[in-house]
């Protein structure tokens, strides 16, 4: 029998474990998992095309937690998009920074994890699910716990800004727990910003519980520096008649891995996942999504699109599970990719696992180039080839951006996408 040896990167992390007094059970569990299983070894199915351990060994030199550097309003301002007037939550190297945040707490409670010590922590994103959840359990210093009250409809979006920068250490471990009570409605936006061009490793875990008949929108924008590595674990429990929509837009980074799991726990739930990866340079983006239909009459929609230039690599793995009880499920999944260069690579694996018979599930996946005829049509009408290409790509990418529920943020993203399509492709 081949024994998978614990790899070097796991040991490097384990050498830098700092003991914390709180959440001892959760941390112990994480540590145990890491000692036993370690970070994903080469060829592990879940990390097949993303040699994460090797990458960490090569790129990260200090495996201890990055210390925070005081942030100024001037640094933050450019990243607050036009038209925004909601609450702002700033994370400085993974830790909440009250000095530059503005939290009104209207309709919700806002505490650090250490203040509240919520029972729910670690119950949604389970340790054994992914080694990086275990790693987060061990390394996070403090996190945020947000609880949106019953039937509260929060009009303005809540914006999370993550500012990352290596400082003494290079490991950044944010932790976020959001509980949305029955009937509430809320929109979250998230943007991650690198403060310099140096490499670091960020490993956030976000857990969300969506109560009965609640409606939640969560949009993430990923545009970190070209040396950054990030592994994001994002898991949502959705309860009866609730809706959750996730939009993820990835534009840069050295290696980005997104694990997104939606658990549809009761009847009448709806889970939506939309993603766009617009890659150039050597950026490697790996989206692993997982929808678990456990009860009847639920619906899930998924659309991920990718445009890949230079020697970038895009990976999509979408799993849909339909359990035996989940009759009358509708689950749709679509992944489209456009390759623009000889060196770009796409690996996609849309996966369906179905145990119920009365369901409608489908997935589709295409990889190709821009439609020659559409290009010709535009050229025939006097639009230059480059412009025509940009236009078509913009239309291709735009379909995903349409799902962003906050118009001002959508405009901000559209602008950045347009800029990218105009310059680099």
């Amino acid at each position, binding site marked *: 029998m081949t024994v998978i040896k614990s790899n070097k990167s796991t040991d490097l992390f384990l050498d830098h474990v700092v003991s914390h007094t709180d959440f001892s059970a959760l941390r112990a569990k994480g540590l145990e998992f890491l000692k036993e299983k370690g970070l994903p070894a080469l060829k592990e199915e879940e990390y097949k095309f993303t040699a994460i351990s090797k990458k960490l060994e090569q790129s990260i030199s200090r495996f201890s937690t990055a210390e925070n550097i005081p942030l100024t309003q001037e640094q933050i301002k450019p990243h607050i998009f036009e038209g925004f007037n909601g609450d702002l939550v700033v994370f400085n190297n993974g830790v909440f920074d009250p000095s530059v945040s503005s939290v009104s707490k209207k309709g919700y409670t806002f505490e650090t994890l250490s203040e509240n010590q919520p029972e729910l922590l670690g119950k949604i994103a389970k340790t054994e699910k992914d080694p990086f959840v275990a790693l987060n359990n061990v390394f996070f210093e403090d996190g945020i716990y947000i609880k949106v009250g019953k039937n509260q409809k929060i009009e303005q979006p809540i914006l999370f800004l993550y500012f990352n920068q290596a400082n003494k250490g290079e490991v950044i471990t944010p932790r976020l727990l959001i509980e949305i009570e029955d009937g509430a409605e809320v929109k979250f936006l998230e943007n991650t910003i690198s403060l310099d061009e140096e490499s670091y490793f960020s490993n956030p875990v976000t857990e969300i519980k969506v109560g009965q008949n609640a409606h939640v929108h969560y949009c993430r924008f990923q545009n970190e520096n070209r040396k950054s590595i990030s592994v994001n674990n994002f898991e949502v429990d959705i309860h009866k008649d609730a809706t959750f929509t996730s939009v993820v837009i990835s534009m840069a980074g050295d290696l980005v891995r997104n694990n997104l799991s939606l658990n549809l726990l009761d009847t009448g739930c709806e889970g939506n996942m939309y993603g766009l990866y617009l890659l150039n340079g050597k950026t490697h983006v790996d989206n692993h999504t997982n929808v678990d239909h456990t009860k009847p009459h639920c619906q899930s929609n998924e659309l991920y699109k990718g445009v890949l230039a230079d020697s970038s690599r895009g990976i999509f793995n979408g799993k849909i599970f339909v359990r035996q009880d989940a009759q009358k499920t509708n689950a749709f999944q679509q992944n489209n990719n456009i390759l*623009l260069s000889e060196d770009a690579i796409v690996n996609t694996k849309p996966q369906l696992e179905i145990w119920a018979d009365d*369901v409608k599930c489908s997935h589709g*996946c295409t990889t190709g180039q821009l439609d020659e005829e559409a290009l010709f049509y535009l050229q025939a009408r006097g639009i230059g080839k480059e412009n025509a290409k940009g236009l078509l790509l913009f239309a291709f990418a735009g379909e995903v951006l349409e799902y962003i529920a906050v118009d001002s943020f959508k405009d901000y993203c559209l602008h950045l996408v347009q800029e990218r399509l105009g310059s680099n492709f």
Partner: protein
Amino acid sequence: MSKDNQILEDLTSKEYEHGWSVNLEVDEAPTGLTEDTIRWISAKKEEPQWLLDWRLKAYKIWLAMDEPKWANVHYPKIDLQSLKFYSAPKQSNKPKSLDEIDPELLQIYERLGISLNEQKKLQGIAVDVVLDSVSVGTTFKDTLSKLGVIFCSFSEAVKEHPELVKKYLGSVVPMTDNYYAALNSAVFSDGSFCYIPKGTRCPMELSTYFRINAANTGQFERTLIIAEDNSYVSYLEGCTAPQRDENQLHAAVVEIYAAKHAEVKYSTVQNWYPGNKEGVGGIYNFVTKRGICAGDYSKISWTQVETGSAVTWKYPSCILKGDYSIGEFYSVAVTNNYQQADTGTKMIHIGKNTKSRIVSKGISAGHSQNSYRGQVQVMKRATNARNFSQCDSLLMGNRCGAHTFPYIDIQNPSAKVEHEATTSKIGEDQLFYCNQRGIATEDAVALIVNGYAKEVLNQLPMEFAVEAQKLLALTLEGSVG
């Protein structure tokens, strides 16, 4: 619902048609697998030294390998040491014509519905029949040899055409390929060998019928098909086994080599014993099938109808090396009771302007699990590669599962790859439409399933299409989703 249950009950209680066995006097290898077993087999078959060396090399490689665990199937560990690796019906001399074949043997095939005599006279199909481990008779040899087509058992080919066997054996499926391919390379007993010379269009369907008869044996056959430039051959394969309570192992290797402008069509109707309705017994079918389109403009087409076996693990694949080469895969996989199937294909695009097409139709009933696992890989140099994949699943009853695992790896920007998959049950509207026009629900189901599988069944040669349709009707008769 009670009607559904009744129908499902009927469906699951259907007995396996080919479940009988015949007491034949047999030559068997001692139980278990050691280097001596391999020497014994090799000596028994009077093989040359190079082949024995090749087998032993494979055995050494196999020893260092682990059983694959990644497939979506569950079964108790197979104790290879309790198996017999060779079993052959006793015959004093090699028969010169069919008249000399043991009448009891012929009877077996009569019962299977493939009378060698009849086939010879009426249908004009050349049949090679493999019972347990060895080939027992090949029809139409003379007619074929006039055209230069070689169609014989593998052991005959080793004796009479060693240069061909030596050149191509293991060239498509190397012994290092996987656990079962290595095992097969070490202990394979017999199989079919087929060689189509340059510019020849094989005038008839070539067919092999595999039958496991003896108890406690594993069947390891090896098929090698070589199609030279501008040739064409259509090859059929059928399998059945007796009903036994223990699980039997079938680990075959099929290799196809297609040169320039050659076309090979390979069709399988697999109906190994699937186990009883509690899931006891049945064949473990772990097969490695692969073809290489080595020459430009060559084409390999796989068609399979999988209805039998307790556990199936099978991925007929195409390596599209030649420019403008084409690979096709058409599959209908039906699982019932506690059957498990993990099947699909691999299309590896290496040459320029290569095309592939995958159509997979899964039907699961009872407590069965049916998985499609496929890979489409477009290498960096495969400019203008084109692939279309469609895999549909049909579920009958709420205890079964359908799973899809497609891997799509693209490294060339000019590739156009499409994949589509759907899972559903038979639509109530479809049934209603039929009912409304006076078609009873049961007939309507048959009609719909037949239509669902038609795209694949149409690819089968006439003679097989009949058998396949019969099989499909048998397994799904009266089932309402």
